[in-house]
């Protein structure tokens, strides 16, 4: 599949399906260092997104249109920090992807825009044990891949791989932003839920674009 509008719908449907499958895993992570709702939050959000996609009268014209629908739906349905964070990420991404199809450069731009959205909203930097620790390496790997002339599929694959590794590496970090910062040192040794779901989102992008 090329990274076109149809793909963007498949991507988001795939995210929704995986979130639903794995929601208790995410909630369990959030129980350790948060308030035990990240799985339910995202599942509520992506369930609403799929409902809205199903209800579309016309097929969206650009990838940006799809991502904007995702953004506004997550913002108003997630109910936790990840709502405005992913909402802003998809909103910025939608502006960067106001096109019917992505090449490698555009795929990289989409991911950078998402990172920029999360950073603007959450004001976290790398190393604070948040989803930034997945988005930032993902954006860097995507930029590298695009610079090497790779296509959208390769760019998303590189990003997904870097996000997964970034999420894994949050285990060793001490949280200084978000709810987990209440735990201070005791947050070390646990994987960040938001970084974990960021890896899922990019993994779905890579898988569906193959």
């Amino acid at each position: 599949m090329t990274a076109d509008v149809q793909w963007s719908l498949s991507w988001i449907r795939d995210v929704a399906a995986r979130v639903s499958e794995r929601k208790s895993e995410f909630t369990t992570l959030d129980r350790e260092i948060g308030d035990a709702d990240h799985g339910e939050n995202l599942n509520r959000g992506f369930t609403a997104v799929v409902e809205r996609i199903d209800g579309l009268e016309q097929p969206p014209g650009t990838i940006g249109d799809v991502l904007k629908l995702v953004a506004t739906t997550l913002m108003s349905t997630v109910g936790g920090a990840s709502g405005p964070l992913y909402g802003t990420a998809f909103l910025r991404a939608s502006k960067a992807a106001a096109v019917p199809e992505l090449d490698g450069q555009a795929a990289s731009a989409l991911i950078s825009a998402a990172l920029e959205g999360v950073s603007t909203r959450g004001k976290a930097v790398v190393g604070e044990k948040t989803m930034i620790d997945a988005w930032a390496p993902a954006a860097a790997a995507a930029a590298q891949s695009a610079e090497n002339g790779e296509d959208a599929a390769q760019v998303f694959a590189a990003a997904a791989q870097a996000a997964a590794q970034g999420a894994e590496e949050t285990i060793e970090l001490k949280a200084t932003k978000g709810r987990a910062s209440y735990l201070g040192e005791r947050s070390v040794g646990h994987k960040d839920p938001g970084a974990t779901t960021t890896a899922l989102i990019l993994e779905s992008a890579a898988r569906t674009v193959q």
Partner: protein
Amino acid sequence: MGTKVSLVLVSHSEKLAEGARDLARQMASEVVIEVAGGLEDGSIGTSFDRISAAIEEAAGFAESDEEQEAHDVVVICDLGSAILSTESVLEFLPEELVGHVYMADAPFVEGVIAAAVEAESGAGVEAVRTAAEEARAFH
């Protein structure tokens, strides 16, 4: 404007928001205080739609008859994720409210009471926000 600054309390819990409003009203009976507490189904979390609605209501925008200018509004949040949600709402603010909505970085209950007392006196929006941000427990 002559009208008092209004407050919006954004909380993860409806009870918490309403309880804080009840306390503040005792000391500031004339200030408009709107709450956005919890999710639509009553569970814990923050709701974009409730926050938007509370801000528009507090700004007097819901019942606005065209001409009227929006009131200034100070928003006080209970936790970081309420702040993030409110910031997203502010990105989508109706044109007429832009420049009228201020967020205070304050301890929730203490900030709400201090802001309400300040607003009751007729102080301007910056003074109300400052009162919230400087609020400490009074003994």
